[in-house]
């Protein structure tokens, strides 16, 4: 193993507090169960570090593996960093394209490597659709400095990217470019909601225009991407009976009617999204249903005004 890589490992492992050592190493997943069992956590940290570096050498750990360990450490210590948030804005009239994680990663890396010859880019997928990107910056003549990396956390289903503040401020615009370029080079793919638009010419949809309207309205309401996973929503009704017909027992009732409606599903928002395209409900859906993600609520009380 290269001396610089060994030194890099040493420094990362030294950073890790003893109480977190096993957890972080396990999360990193590079060293095997057997190897981890041979580690003596009771010795002095310096000796422990030496042992671990030897284990890494045995397994021929590379710079990339070290970078991944660094990402894992940072994920556990994210609160120790100061993060800037960037929000991507779309040009009006631009279609949002399907997001392909692998394509994003490869084009991100390519763009940075094309701009600066010496740069280390590493990726680690995180909780739902988020990716942690670690960038170690170099220059044309100098190898990347592994001790001052920038982290970018990108939640692919949102227009937000978080970056750890970097001393090397000049690199921020370059990062911005990688996102821009990525978005515009993703090939446009036709996406049909739920139903496949039938290619068989012997099947004719008489209500094609209406179908397209429903698809459009559904897409406008719910967006292209998978919905956040929600399992139930509850509506409590406390309203007086309203009727067009005059008279009737219920019309005279002073007390509000009480009613509880509970929706449950393995993925409620996806189910709601598929209602109109499947022909089960009219589009647009009631705002009572579609306001759930906006309002961030799933318990509603509906009363007379």
């Amino acid at each position, binding site marked *: 193993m290269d001396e610089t890589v060994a030194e890099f490992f040493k420094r990362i492992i030294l950073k890790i507090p003893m109480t977190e050592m096993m957890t972080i190493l396990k999360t990193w997943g590079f060293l095997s169960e057997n190897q981890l069992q041979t580690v003596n956590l009771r010795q002095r940290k310096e000796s422990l570090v030496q042992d671990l570096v030897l284990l890494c050498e045995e397994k021929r750990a590379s710079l990339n593996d070290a970078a991944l360990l660094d990402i894992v450490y940072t994920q556990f210590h994210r609160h120790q960093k100061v993060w800037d948030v960037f929000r991507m804005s779309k040009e009006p009239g631009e279609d949002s394209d399907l997001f392909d994680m692998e394509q994003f990663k490869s084009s991100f890396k390519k763009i940075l490597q094309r701009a600066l010859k010496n740069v280390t880019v590493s990726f680690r997928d995180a909780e739902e659709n988020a990716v942690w990107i670690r960038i170690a910056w170099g220059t044309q003549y100098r190898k990347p400095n592994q001790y001052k990396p920038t982290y970018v956390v990108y939640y692919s289903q949102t227009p937000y990217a978080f970056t750890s503040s970097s001393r090397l401020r000049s690199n921020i615009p370059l990062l911005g470019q990688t996102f821009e370029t990525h978005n515009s080079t993703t090939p446009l793919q036709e996406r049909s909601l739920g139903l496949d638009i039938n290619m068989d010419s*012997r099947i004719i949809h008489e209500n094609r225009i209406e179908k397209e309207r429903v698809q459009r309205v559904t897409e406008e309401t719910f967006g292209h991407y998978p919905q956040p996973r929600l399992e139930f929503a509850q509506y409590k009704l406390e309203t007086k009976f309203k009727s067009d017909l005059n008279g009737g027992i219920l019309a005279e009732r002073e007390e509000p009617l009480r009613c509880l409606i509970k929706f449950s599903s393995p993925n409620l928002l996806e189910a709601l999204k598929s209602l109109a395209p499947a022909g089960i409900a009219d589009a647009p859906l009631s705002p009572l249903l579609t306001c759930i993600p906006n309002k961030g609520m799933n318990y509603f009380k509906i009363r007379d005004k």
Partner: protein
Amino acid sequence: MSVLRPLDKLPGLNTATILLVGTEDALLQQLADAMLKEDCASDLKVHLAKSLPLPSNVTRPRIDLIVFVVNLHSKYSLRNVEESLHHVDAAFFLGKVGFLATGAGRESHCSVHRNTVAKLAHTYRSPLLFCDLEVEGFRATMAQRLVRMLQICAGHVPGVSALNLLSLLRSSENPSLEDL
């Protein structure tokens, strides 16, 4: 008010066209796919519509058979069919209309009673078929039946007309329904 008439157009050469009417597009489409998979001497065409009347500015072939699909789980789908029936000329009901009820297998989900659809079919003197379209095996079998019915209605089966078929189907009906 535009009304579908059975004989207002000339037939296409060896063509048989079925019109499936129902709110649940996904089910209709799957049924259409299943029908087109069948080996058939006639050129089949399947038109899918959510409801009637059909858009008027479109040229379409002569429709040989209309099948109204009702999902027993949805009162909305029944109401939709009931309203669409008003846009069909009486001459169609001489063997060129059928009703298909889906969802009977899941009793607990049914909000439309079987008898309601049975009465509807009886009122319009047309056959009622039951099939859980969500189940692939049942759907394939139903598709075979519909293709056969369609061929007869299009006149592609020598010696059997739509009216013949209708009286054949009618005689096997439960006699107690006749009293309704």
